[in-house]
C-alpha cells in the first residue's frame, strides 16, 4: 500500500476475513477493514446484504464463524472474541457504544431519563451523585432535551426524543467507537435532519470513531468519511464516500446510486 504519509496514530479496529455463516447460508463473507480514531465508516446495501450481520459481529454481539476482530482499548489490538468474557463486557461497557435503530433496545424504559444516563457513568466508575446529575443534565441539553424532563421515563417521550436520549446514553461515557444501526430509521424526515446534524457535530467534537449501517445514501454522504457497499454478504466496493457515490465502479453500486432520488 502506498500509505507512507498516513498519520502516525494507530488503528482502532482491525477486521480480518470475517465470515458469519447461518448453517449453509452466509450472513457475511471474508470482510476485512480498518478503522482509525475519529473516522466514520458507512456500510450500505439493501436488506439481506449482510450489513447488520457484520455490525453484530463487529460490535461483540455475535461471534463470527471465521476471522478476527481486533480492537485497541488502550493496550494494543486485542481479538475481542479471544479475551475473557468479563474483559469483553468491560470493553463493551466503557470503550464502545451501540446505538440501536429502535431506541427501546438501547434504553431502560422503566427508569427515568436521568437514570438512563447515570447508569453509564456509574458503570464507568463515577460515584459522586451531584457530579453524575450535573453531567446528565449537560448531556440532556446537548441532545436538545429539556433538563426539566430528567425525571420522566423515556416512554413519555416522542420517538425522536427517545432516539436522542439513546444517543446521549451512548456518548456520555465518552466511548472511542460507536456502532449505529440505521440510527434515523423510524423517524420523520424533519426529525432525521436534526438528529443527523447533532450526530455530525458530536462525533466531530468528541473525535470518536463510528461505524454506521444505513440503507440511506443521503445519510451516508452527510455523516461518513468512507463507505463499504455490501451485496450478498460480500463487500463489492469501498473507498471515500464521495468517490463511491459519485464515480461508482461496481455494477451493483451503479444501480444503487442511480436508483435514488437526488438528495
Amino acid at each position: 500500500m502506498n500509505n507512507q504519509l498516513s498519520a502516525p496514530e494507530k488503528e482502532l479496529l482491525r477486521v480480518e476475513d470475517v465470515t458469519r455463516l447461518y448453517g449453509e447460508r452466509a450472513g457475511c463473507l471474508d470482510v476485512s477493514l480498518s478503522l482509525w480514531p475519529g473516522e466514520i465508516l458507512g456500510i450500505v446495501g439493501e436488506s439481506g446484504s449482510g450489513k447488520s450481520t457484520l455490525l453484530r459481529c463487529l460490535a461483540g454481539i455475535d461471534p463470527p464463524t471465521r476471522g478476527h476482530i481486533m480492537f485497541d482499548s488502550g493496550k494494543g489490538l486485542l481479538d475481542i472474541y479471544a479475551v475473557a468474557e468479563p474483559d469483553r463486557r468491560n470493553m463493551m461497557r466503557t470503550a464502545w457504544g451501540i446505538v440501536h435503530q429502535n431506541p427501546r433496545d438501547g434504553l431502560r424504559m422503566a427508569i427515568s431519563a436521568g437514570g438512563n444516563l447515570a447508569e453509564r457513568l456509574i458503570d464507568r466508575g463515577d460515584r459522586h451523585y451531584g457530579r453524575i446529575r450535573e453531567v446528565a443534565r449537560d448531556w440532556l441539553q446537548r441532545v436538545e432535551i429539556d433538563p426539566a424532563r430528567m425525571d420522566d421515563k423515556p416512554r413519555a417521550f416522542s420517538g425522536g426524543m427517545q432516539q436522542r436520549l439513546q444517543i446521549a446514553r451512548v456518548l456520555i461515557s465518552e466511548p472511542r467507537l460507536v456502532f449505529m444501526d440505521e440510527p434515523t430509521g423510524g423517524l420523520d424526515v424533519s426529525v432525521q435532519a436534526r438528529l443527523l446534524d447533532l450526530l455530525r457535530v458530536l462525533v466531530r467534537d468528541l473525535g470518536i470513531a463510528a461505524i454506521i449501517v444505513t440503507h440511506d445514501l443521503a445519510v451516508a454522504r452527510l455523516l461518513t468519511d468512507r463507505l463499504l457497499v455490501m451485496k450478498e454478504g460480500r463487500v463489492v466496493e469501498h473507498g471515500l464516500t464521495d468517490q463511491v457515490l459519485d464515480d461508482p465502479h461496481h455494477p451493483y453500486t451503479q444501480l444503487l446510486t442511480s436508483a435514488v432520488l437526488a438528495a
Partner: protein
Amino acid sequence: MTVTIRVEQLTKQFVLHNQGGVALPVFRDLKFEVAAGEMLVLHGRSGVGKSSLLRMLFGNYKPSAGHIFIQHLGEMVDIASTAPRTLLEIRRKSIGFVSQFLRVIPRVTAVDVVRDRMLARGVDARLATERAQVMLERLNLPSRLWKLAPSTFSGGEQQRVNIARSFVDPAPILLLDEPTASLDPANRDVVIQLIHETRQAGHTLVGVFHDQGVREAVATRTLDLTHSDRAAR
C-alpha cells in the same frame, strides 16, 4: 516556480454496467503540470471532460490509469494510488474544491459554514468569526442573513456563502468549478479579485469557467482538452 500538481498518463473512461456495459472514454494519456502562483484554465466544448478532470484532481473521480501527484506537506503524493484516509488528510490540508453549489447542512448558520474550515485547522474562534464576517461582507451577503442557516437562502446567496468559505482561508491548491456561474456582475468581479489575490499569495488554482470574460480576466495559462480522448500526445 514550484510544481504542485503533476499529471502523468492520465486515462479515464466511464463504464456503465447497467446500460449494456457501454464505455465512455474521456481522456487518454493526459499529461500536464501546474505550479504555485498559476491559474490554469481548462478549456474545450461542453462534454469534453473539464469538470471530470477537475473532480479527478480532487480524488472525487478515480482514474482508470495514470498518476495525479499533488503537493502535500512538501511531498508529491499520487492520489490515484494513495490510501483513502491519506486522501482525506490531503483534502483537509492541501486541496480545496469550489463549486457553484453549497452542500447545505441543516441548521448550521452562514457564519458557521464559512468559519468551519478555520476552526478545524485550529484558528481561534473569535478571529475565525471576524474573518468570516469580513468575507461575507465583501461578497455582499446582507448581515441579517449571517446568523441564519443557508438552507432558506436563494441560489445566488448560497453560492456566495460557498465562495466565502472556500476563499476565507484557502487551501494551497484550489479547484474551481464554475464558481462565477449565475453571479451578478458586481459579485463576479469580487470573485475575480479573490482569485487574483489567492494566486498572488502563491496558491495554485485550476478552474473551469463558462464565461469568456472571466476566463480572460483570471487565466495565466489555458489547457485545451479538445481531442484528449484520442491518441497520446
